[in-house]
């Protein structure tokens, strides 16, 4: 049985994303893979992790098999420690109570900027996307982990529209724009794990997923990729990770 058969693309995405979290952190998680991956981390290595949801939930403890259809649904509050208003949970970011934000992404560029607003010219868009939700606030105010599908049309040199800022135009441009803290920290795809250069703030590959080549990552990316000098291969999902993930999402709501 090969690695590729042991898990789906969504499953390795969720598992590698979960590994980015550290016990004791406060993580602001979006719906979908972020919610699932944060819960996976909580149920494996990180029992003292605190999960926040945009709907106003602090300290979520999502029930296996009952994943909520949005982070504004009552299911998110089951066995939570606190329920706040929607603006108030976002204000926790502004006040500095949040260690890391964790979102999905539709389109990302070399400086980690995310677009979820417009494909094409914003004045006359080809596609009007759903918009920022909490994404802009989270990415503006804390350190970000993004979990997303790896496709050439999604990994572009420059996004059509910066909905959620990463490092903007690189270098000090984020700070210069009035965002002194936070920034893009990790991007996780089914192919690789990415970080950002400390100086240029350009994206780079930190690790390849098991069985994935440099070429495969580059071929699925819309711009030239840098590879970290300590590039390594991520260790594959453990049975425990896979079993816990499947216990949490038996209906494959977010791991189809």
């Amino acid at each position, binding site marked *: 049985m090969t690695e590729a058969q042991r898990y789906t693309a969504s499953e390795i995405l969720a598992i590698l994303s979960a590994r980015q979290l550290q016990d004791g952190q406060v993580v602001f998680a979006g719906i979908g893979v972020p919610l699932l991956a944060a819960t996976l981390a909580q149920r494996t290595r990180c029992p003292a992790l605190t999960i926040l949801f945009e709907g106003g939930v602090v300290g979520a403890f999502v029930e296996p098999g009952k994943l909520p259809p949005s982070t504004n649904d*009552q299911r998110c509050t089951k066995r939570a420690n606190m329920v706040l208003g929607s603006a108030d949970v976002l204000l926790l970011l502004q006040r500095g109570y949040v260690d890391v934000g964790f979102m999905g992404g539709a389109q990302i560029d070399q400086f980690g900027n995310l677009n979820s607003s417009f494909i094409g010219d914003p004045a006359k868009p080809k*596609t009007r996307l*759903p918009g920022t939700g909490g994404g*802009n606030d989270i990415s503006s105010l804390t350190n970000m982990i993004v979990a997303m599908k790896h496709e050439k049309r999604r990994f572009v040199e420059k996004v059509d529209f910066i909905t959620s800022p990463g490092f903007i135009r690189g270098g000090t441009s984020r700070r210069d724009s009035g965002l002194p803290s936070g920034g893009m920290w990790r991007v996780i795809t089914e192919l690789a794990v990415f970080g950002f250069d400390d100086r240029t703030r350009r994206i780079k590959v930190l690790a390849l997923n098991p069985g994935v080549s440099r070429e495969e990552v580059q071929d699925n990316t819309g711009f030239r990729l840098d590879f970290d000098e300590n590039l390594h291969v991520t260790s594959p999902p453990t049975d425990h990770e896979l079993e816990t993930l499947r216990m949490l999402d038996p209906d494959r709501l977010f791991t189809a």
Partner: protein
Amino acid sequence: MAQRDRSLREKVVSLEEAAGFVQDGMKVGVGGSTMSRTPMAMLWELIRQHRKDLSISRCIVSTDGDLVFGSGLANHVVTSWFAQGILWGLSKVMRHHVENGGKRYEEWSHMAVGMRFRAGGMGIPFLPTRAMLGSDIVGQRPEAKQIDCPFTGEKLLLVPALNPDVALIHVQRCDPYGNAQIDGLQFMDIDLAFAANSVILTTERIVSNDQIRRAPDQTKIPFFCVDAVVEVPYGSAPHECYGLYEPMMRHMEAYVAQVNADPVKGMQEYLDRYFYSPKSWNEYLSLIGMDEVLEATQKGRSIYND
């Protein structure tokens, strides 16, 4: 505000009567978020009465956004996220009306929408925030002003107060005066109620003022913000109401399939069948079906199971 009647008086009316508080072209704030505590019965009634050209603002917009664009109830939506729900990808209805139909989706960050309601509720012209800076959203929002902080020198964005003419808010319970108690997730409803110049409450049940006065620290909206109270059980269907029912997902899925297949004809058929044809809200619930309603109720109540 100055001329408003703030006396402690009964305000219970029918859905039909409550709709009279909303006039064509008004700025209307809609309570709840996504598929939760949406004032669906009130929107349903306004659509049936063919109100039009509203400017609607809401925490997060879900299928309610489709319906207000598709029916012509609104031509402008102010929010931070507008689709049917993450499970179903993009809303073809929103896309149709925004990309081709001349309707406007005005996007702010989620916190910015909240701060606009909050400033409105606090009686101040703006609130400072640290979000939106550096993004391309801010370039689309000349209504916001960037300043250098007079205390720290850092850059801040000032977002203007949003004071809707009317807010539509659905709650678990309130008294005949409009003192409302909301369980679970509040979303932006408290700020919205204080910000709006008028509030229509729909409620799962009307309780006595005595019951409210036994637990005054559970009251979330005071009666003097409120102009009309309508008792509408399952008033958020097919969306959820915390502690009482979850979203009616089979209905939602059928809805999404129908309108995304044809955002004009599919929507018109949906509105004809579920909005214009029923004689009453209960008949609309019958069309959703007893099985769905009771299954959603069983799940909704389970939040309090230990």
